[in-house]
């Protein structure tokens, strides 16, 4: 197991997190550890749902993902893409993603226009942090 993933695993086991959320965190961590090097680049909620199926409900899964993206021992980065009818998924750069999440303003990367109903068009995905594989 790469050191970064092991550190997160050990921290989770010794932390105050408990119950289904802990189980979900550990399942996701184990699953990430099992992936080939490039397979953690585009992890969708569908992938994670399959991993925690039968162990955690959707709220618990999202709580686990939140821990795994924001804690000091985070394994994942979170990103967003916009569904565009003509171009397919358009990945947002960090600045556009931040404004969509924090300010609720989603700017179309091609037109520069504000996209109405951002929650309908914005989709999250996760990627394994490169540094945790060291």
């Amino acid at each position, binding site marked *: 197991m790469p050191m970064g993933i092991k550190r997160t695993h050990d921290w989770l086991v010794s932390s105050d997190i408990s119950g289904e959320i802990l189980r979900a965190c550990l399942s996701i961590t184990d699953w990430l550890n099992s992936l*080939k090097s*490039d*397979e953690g*680049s*585009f992890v969708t909620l569908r992938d994670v749902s399959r991993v925690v199926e039968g162990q955690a409900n959707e709220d618990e899964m999202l709580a686990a993902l939140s821990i795994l993206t924001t804690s000091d021992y985070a394994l994942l980065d979170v*990103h967003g*893409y916009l569904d565009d*009818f*003509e*171009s397919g*998924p358009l*990945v947002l*750069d960090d*600045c556009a993603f931040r*404004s969509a999440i924090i*300010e609720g*303003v989603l*700017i*179309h*990367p*091609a*037109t*520069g*226009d*504000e996209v109405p109903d951002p929650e309908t068009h914005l989709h999250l*995905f996760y*990627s394994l942090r*490169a540094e945790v594989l060291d």
Partner: protein
Amino acid sequence: MILKTLNSMRKRMSWTDARVLLLKAGIEPGLGWNKTIEKIKQLPVQPDAGPLQDQVIEHILCGQKFTKLYPLNPKDRTALQAKLVDQKIPDIAAALSFPNHLTEDQLIEHPGGFSPVSVESDDDGIGLVFSSAFQMKKREDIPFEEFGHPDEIRARYDEIVGVTFQWEQIMSVIWVPHHRDNIELRIDYPKGMTQDAIHALHSQLRELVNSLGVVKLVKAINLFPAVRNFYDDKKEGRVTEIMFSTTTGGIKNEKIIKRRGQIDQRDETYHLAGKAGLDTEINLYRVTVEWSFTEDNLFFKPSILLAATGPSGKGPGGEPTISGAVIGGCVRAADYEFVIERLGQKVKLTA
């Protein structure tokens, strides 16, 4: 003045490119075009439009182009460059407002065909810039509220889309480099322009070059050899899309969605496993390569797309041919020149 420039940028380039140009010109963009323009309007002193206009000119020369290369006999170079410089620029709105784009009303009055609007030069070469008015098919969402019974319509449809035909200003360039033995014909290739349309425009521009009486352009250089050469050279940029056929009867289009990551389609696990299952080579006929540079905390991402219409054709050994490349993501002339140099090496053009 700067508002005209901003509106021109909004018409001709993606927001992603525009943000980089604004930051390069020392203007902090807001969230999207509307807020950026509003923010600049409220400044007590409007920023000087000059630096931004220089960058718009570079974008007109290099941004999002469909480029065809034609062989140039070095002995014709000076005469052809002189001919470009000597072209009379007519007193038409497109030339008078250059590098700003025309308004929709002005575009309706634009003369047909290619109108010369400026001669530009830099360390790389000399170019004659043309403006054309081109009708593009556009899709736009129609809000439910525009219908008599919006709730009924909303219950029935997720989205309502209208199609309109709008005039757009297309900028084209005849570029004669100082050090490469090719004439480059570069034409704007905005989203929504069809392959047929871009090739038709290229044919007209080629005839325009021939009418200058210095060279006779016949056939664009076949860029197809670069497809395999880009794919095989794993040190060359990052391949983000490929299309190929297999002897099992499959046509595969593989893309990397995470554009700014390190994953390369050439080494992607799924791609390698698929290839490993075959006894025969894949027949590549489309490739996109991206490069990434960071300078002064700005991120530049030039790219090239080479696409044939299918896996075989009338080229050497039954290969398809590719007469033009889509060179995108270039906000500076240096980005474009970098890509064209790489293309030259991969097609194995002599310098």
